[in-house]
């Protein structure tokens, strides 16, 4: 097999793995958008905040240490203990649920029946508020997140492909784990939404608020539930990205990469978010490999957005989105 083709295959596989992470972030957007029609700009920051909190709890960091020290003149930074990863994940999830509740109680409940643009603005405010809180609570230095996921070259794949093609593929263990977790997560979400009472209620609320109320569904409960699930998805995404490239504030920028994913997949489709993420992941890696090298590289920065722009022109509802028909 020609080398070029082998390289392309390896790049494609790596692209798929990267795409899984895009999909995870996009999934959080889709969940909230479906249930409440809100485009939650804060989804990326939620992932960041979850990752920050997770590291903070694991390391036994004192929250708001900087603030406490400057007010009381003390000098405390750490509790001096380490919390096991699993317990820390559970604690972080509890905090994300509390956050979901607070967002509904103090922000969204006051904005019921407002224009979508106003809700969108509210989530922008929320994003910067949460970023600020994250900074204040845990500090702004780059942290390493190690929850015990395997990392580095997968030797089995390397060996098998070397024996088969005479060229060993470089696939990161972490990417494989991320893929498996994403598949489990999506399968779980599908089961939940198709077969549980809460899932049915969630789909009902997404479809028609009035009708949902009339069959005994509490909108507030469903919204808190949705934001909690989105918080959970953010936590998973935060762990993956954090483990890959460290927990830093640029993590919140991955939210922007989710935008073209959503334009491709459609804002209301869970499979769309998955497929969109994979297409963008593979697309940008292959484009960089095949064409990027001839035009000076760094195409990964813009490729996704240009692809999304093309989609907006030819298929504005995305691959799986509901077709928008305006009757006149």
């Amino acid at each position, binding site marked *: 097999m020609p080398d070029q083709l082998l390289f392309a295959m390896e790049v494609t596989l790596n692209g798929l793995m990267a795409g899984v992470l895009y999909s995870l972030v996009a999934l959080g957007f889709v969940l909230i958008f479906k249930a409440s029609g809100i485009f939650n700009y804060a989804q990326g920051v939620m992932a960041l905040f979850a990752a920050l909190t997770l590291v903070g709890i694991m390391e036994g960091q004192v929250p708001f240490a900087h603030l406490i020290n400057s007010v009381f003149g003390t000098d405390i930074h750490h509790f001096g203990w380490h919390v096991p990863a699993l317990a820390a994940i559970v604690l972080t999830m509890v905090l994300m649920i509390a956050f979901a509740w607070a967002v509904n109680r103090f922000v969204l409940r006051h904005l019921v029946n407002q224009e979508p643009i106003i809700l969108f603005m509210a989530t922008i405010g929320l994003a910067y508020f949460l970023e600020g809180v994250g900074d204040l609570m845990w500090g702004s230095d780059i942290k390493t997140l190690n929850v015990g996921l395997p990392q580095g070259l997968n030797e089995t794949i390397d060996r098998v492909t070397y024996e088969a093609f005479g060229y060993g593929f470089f696939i990161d263990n972490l990417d494989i784990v991320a893929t498996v977790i994403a598949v489990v997560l999506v399968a*779980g979400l599908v*089961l*939940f939404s198709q*077969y*549980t*009472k*809460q*899932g*049915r*209620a969630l*789909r*009902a609320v*997404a*479809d*028609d608020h*009035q*009708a*949902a*109320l*009339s*069959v*005994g*569904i*509490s*909108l507030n409960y469903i919204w808190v539930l949705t934001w909690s699930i989105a918080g959970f998805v953010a936590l998973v995404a935060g762990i993956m990205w954090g483990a890959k490239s460290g927990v830093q504030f640029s993590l919140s920028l991955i939210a922007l990469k989710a935008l073209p994913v959503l334009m491709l997949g459609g804002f209301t489709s869970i499979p769309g978010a998955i497929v969109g993420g994979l297409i963008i992941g593979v697309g940008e890696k292959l484009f960089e490999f095949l064409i990027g090298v001839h035009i000076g590289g760094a195409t990964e920065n813009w490729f996704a957005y240009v692809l999304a722009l093309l989609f907006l022109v030819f298929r504005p509802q995305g691959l799986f989105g*509901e077709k928008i028909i305006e009757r006149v």
Partner: protein
Amino acid sequence: MNAMSGNTTTADGRKIGGVLMEMRNITLRFGGVEAIKDISFDILEGEVRAIIGPNGAGKSSMLNVISGFYNPQVGEVWFRGEKRPPMKPYEVARLGIARTFQNIALFDGMSVLDNIMTGRLTHMTTGMLAQAIWKGKAEREEVANREIVEKIIDFLEIQHIRKVPVGRLPYGLKKRVELARALAAEPKLLLLDEPMAGMNVEEKEDMSRYILDTNDEFGTTIALIEHDMGVVMDLSDRVVVMDYGKKIGDGTPDEVRNNQEVIDAYLGVAHD
């Protein structure tokens, strides 16, 4: 009090019981506008009670008060012998009061079957995890719910569209699916907001038959709003007539038909 209160049997053999719901001195304001002015009436168990009146009389507002979408500024709502505190619509639904809407509120993206299944939500008790993995009690519950839903689908003769997404159905069938969803809740009180609005004569006849059969077979108490006097007179045991937010008549169809104030409101007289 009129002749029909208390435990009686109608000419066609249906049982009418005691008071199921009572509205006492309800006043509802939107800003300075009084949509409902000091109205009282009751609904007896097992009867078909109609609320009629010209456009803007406050009929829909009254239905929205009963179903908890509006809470009145003045007055009390009594249900099954207890005073009902101000409630959210979903809490009212859980009390066993189901409703349909004038402009149809269905879940367009879901199939007919799934739509009707949402009517069973108030009856589902098993845990989230059990349902997701579909075992034991959750499975039995789902099967039992499905049986009830299938019975209603048969009853309303919509077997042929069970799997069709509701968004694709014509208007008349949508109205029927909405009725099916409300019935699936096995309500103690069924509220119908203009069930015949926008229908042709044939569809109106079908719907009338379904409403009467519902009342007859399941003994469901029904309160309905209707515009069309003729339809209402055939359907209902007793009628409340509203005009400009006030109650101007209350009684059997015959009593109401001969009430001068009601005739004036419908035909229009010069107010001096």
